[in-house]
């Protein structure tokens, strides 16, 4: 047991906006874990920015009392990278869903991993587009038939977020479960403290369009081994994994990318370039 000094309780990081998530949604657990992690780290609210894209999970900034930016679909990482480049003093968190992050924002995900800016990226993965009433997402199993758009399943192998993150150069890869807010809080704390791009996939059941995901609480289990810093070992573990292991999988340290932010031109000079 370690003592921490937090001037704020987790509740102080929640806004007065009432979530529109369905009752029972896994995202409530993520919101709870985010506020607990920030309280544990004793971060001042004005020192944290939470950026999101579009989707149920991307509503998170509205429900927190932090700087927030509810951005464009799939572009949360691009916005967050710009913010971190301009304001390296801020703790920058990014939140979104599996569709936002791996489909529409898939390209940004790859490059955010390899750029290794000091950002924590939380993907609330429920293997479905919930906000648009239940279509298959990149992480949906190929034989999931419960959508009118894909009545015979997608037939496409699902995206493996950890494998893609590793291959793209992410320096922190972890998986949590929204039904374990304590464990998830610990991973979030480690992700925020990690110097570099931290990718945290959170299994977060959609109780409305994927009610079978309520069984996840019986299926999740911790990784068998402690985190490795060896990418080959990490790759082997990812390939052997059933997708339901939780904990820190991979962590390594390489230089964090951060632009120097030197003034290279006066605003008046810049304006001169736009004269018609």
């Amino acid at each position, binding site marked *: 047991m*370690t003592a921490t000094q937090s001037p704020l309780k987790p509740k102080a990081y929640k806004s007065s906006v*009432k979530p529109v998530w*369905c009752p*029972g949604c896994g995202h409530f657990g993520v919101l709870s874990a985010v506020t607990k992690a920030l309280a544990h780290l004793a971060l001042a609210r004005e020192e944290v920015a939470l950026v999101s894209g579009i989707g149920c999970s991307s509503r998170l900034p509205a429900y927190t009392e932090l700087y927030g930016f509810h951005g464009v679909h799939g572009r949360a990482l691009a916005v967050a990278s710009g913010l971190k480049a301009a304001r390296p003093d801020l703790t920058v968190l990014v939140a979104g869903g599996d569709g936002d992050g791996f489909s529409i924002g898939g390209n940004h995900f790859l490059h955010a991993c390899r750029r290794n800016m000091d950002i924590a990226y939380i993907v609330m993965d429920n293997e479905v587009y919930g906000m648009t009433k239940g279509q298959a997402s990149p992480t949906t199993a190929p034989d999931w038939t*419960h959508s009118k758009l894909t009545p015979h399943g997608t037939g496409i192998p699902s995206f493996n977020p950890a494998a893609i993150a590793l291959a793209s150069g992410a320096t922190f890869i972890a998986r949590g479960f929204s039904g374990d807010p*304590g*464990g998830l809080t610990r991973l979030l704390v480690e992700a925020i403290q990690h110097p570099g791009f931290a990718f945290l996939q959170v299994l977060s059941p959609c109780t409305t*369009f994927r009610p079978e995901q*309520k069984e996840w609480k019986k299926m999740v289990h911790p990784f068998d081994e402690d985190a490795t810093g060896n990418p080959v070992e990490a790759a082997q573990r990812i390939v052997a994994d059933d997708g339901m292991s939780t904990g820190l999988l991979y962590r390594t340290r390489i230089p964090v990318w951060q632009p120097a932010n030197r003034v290279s031109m006066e605003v008046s000079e810049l304006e001169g370039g736009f004269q018609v």
Partner: protein
Amino acid sequence: MKITISAPIETVPEFLAHALELENESVERYEQLADSMETHNNLEVAELFQKLAGFGDKHAQEVTEHAAGMQLPRIPPWDFKWTSGEAPENQGFDEVSYLMTPCQALRMSLHNERLGRDFYAHVADTTPTAQVRALAREFAAEEGEHVRLLEQWIDSLAECNEPPPEDMDPPNMPE
């Protein structure tokens, strides 16, 4: 569900830190459910959850009074000794639905109060410290009283003998 702890709770401040977290988490979850039900226009159940949050808040205040003058340890959220992942009274909330009835809400609350009672009883059975044992027994008895009141409340509701309402606006699923 069986309540277990990772190790015995040995001191009164440690016990009260656990009790306070348990009660506060319960209050926060009921408040969240009340908001959620209000958002989904289930006002009757919203009011009920708000009432349950109020009861929990009173219990949290009692725990705070017990802790007056003590320095409680600040325990990281992942280091509480219950092994259920979430606090013992915060179980089963993934089973809620925007259509849930007061009876279903009370049954869920009853389930959680029983878990709370079992947690305190388990602490009493496993602690090596007499003071912790006495307090844990007192708290278990209080939770037992809540269980009894909830059972009576449920018995008084005629709707508890009826089947749950059908969802007239189900999620967009194929036949």
